[in-house]
């Protein structure tokens, strides 16, 4: 057990070692550890955030889907309604058109009939005049032929 200069030497080398460790060893290694810890924490937080966002997106998608379904239902219902409306309209239109056509046809027929009757009347008058002429040529005796003329006139 000799205490001598070695004590001072050991003390100095100890101080130097501690200083070196503090400056060049501890700080970078712990810095790296700290950085990695931060990185991992960030990664985990990001993962959690992503998961949360995914959940939100799923919920949103569900909402959108439901809305779309409802809209589609509405559209189908509207289309059906519109379809029946169109059919009804077409039916009414067709009916009125038909009626119009019928009325027009009837009017035309009547006109035709009237025209024919007119023509007939003219022709009968001409015929009557011709008949009368023939009768007159055979015998101009109004009294004897009166009954014929009367009968003709009645016929018209």
């Amino acid at each position, binding site marked *: 057990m000799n205490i*001598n*200069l*070695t004590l001072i030497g050991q003390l100095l080398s100890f101080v130097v070692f*501690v200083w070196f460790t503090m400056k060049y060893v501890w700080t*970078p*290694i712990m810095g790296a550890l700290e950085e990695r810890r931060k990185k991992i924490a960030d990664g985990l937080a990001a993962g959690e955030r992503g998961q949360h966002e995914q959940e939100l997106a799923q919920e949103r998608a569900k909402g959108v889907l439901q809305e779309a379904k409802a809209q589609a239902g509405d559209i189908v219902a509207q289309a059906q309604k519109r379809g029946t409306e169109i059919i009804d309209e077409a039916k009414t239109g067709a009916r009125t058109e038909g009626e119009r056509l019928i009325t027009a046809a009837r009017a035309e027929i009547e006109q035709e009939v009237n025209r024919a009757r007119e023509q007939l009347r003219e022709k009968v008058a001409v015929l009557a005049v011709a008949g009368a002429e023939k009768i007159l040529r055979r015998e101009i005796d109004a009294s004897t032929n009166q009954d014929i003329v009367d009968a003709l006139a009645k016929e018209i």
Partner: protein
Amino acid sequence: MAGDTLTSGEYIRHHLTNLTYGQLPDGSWGIAHNAAEIKAMGFWSIHVDTMFWSIFLGVLFLYFFKKVADNVTAGVPAGMQNFAEWTCEFIDVSVRGSFSAKNNLVAPLSLTIFIWIFLMNLMDLLPVDVIPEISKLLGIHYMKVVSTTDPNATFGMAIGVFIIVFYYTFKIKGVGGFLGELTLQPFSSKNPVVQGLFIPINFVLELVSLISKPLSLSLRLFGNMYAGEMIFILIAIMYSAGVTMGLLGGVLQLGWAIFHILIITLQAFIFMVLSIVYLEMAHTDH
């Protein structure tokens, strides 16, 4: 190895003598040749083997950790970085466990203490004759490999720790706080006269406890390692006492070495933890 040319006593003494450089009796400077010369050298001599092995191991430790620190990455660590990080993490946890104040010196100090003492103690597990015999071939007659069996090494470290402890005591509590801690406890009284009587008693008690701290810190490590080394040397003597004793010695050496793995780690750890505790005491009032 022993016995043929040396007696057991000489063998042990030889193993416990440091390679000492100092002023020889004839006035020149050189390596001492025997114990008497070492004694004559007094304080102004130096244990070359202690210095060499402690600095060699310290540099080895710093080289290894510096290499890791230079290539340190926050990404996926590999190889040596894993080990260095594990060590640093372990030290960091130990420091956080018993040191509450904020101080950037304490953790690196603890790392240095732990690894350095551990490495110096680890030399104890080498068979006691290996390096001395090699150095004998190189012409060096004394070689104590385990630096922590030299009280100079342990005192040196303990004094280093206490210089730092005193520095922080004065820095944080001031001279008044330090003197107050030294004189106003454990006994205190509201009565000024009684308090005045207590002051010398407190001072003696606290002074003893103050001095005993670095002393016990270094002597604990020194004593454990010295005793362990001594037992290794005693076991080594058995090798020269025939085959049966030699075999028994082999078994004993193996057993003691395995047990010693625990001791060397534990002593390094205790030295570190106590240093942390003393530093913590320097930072807090009590």
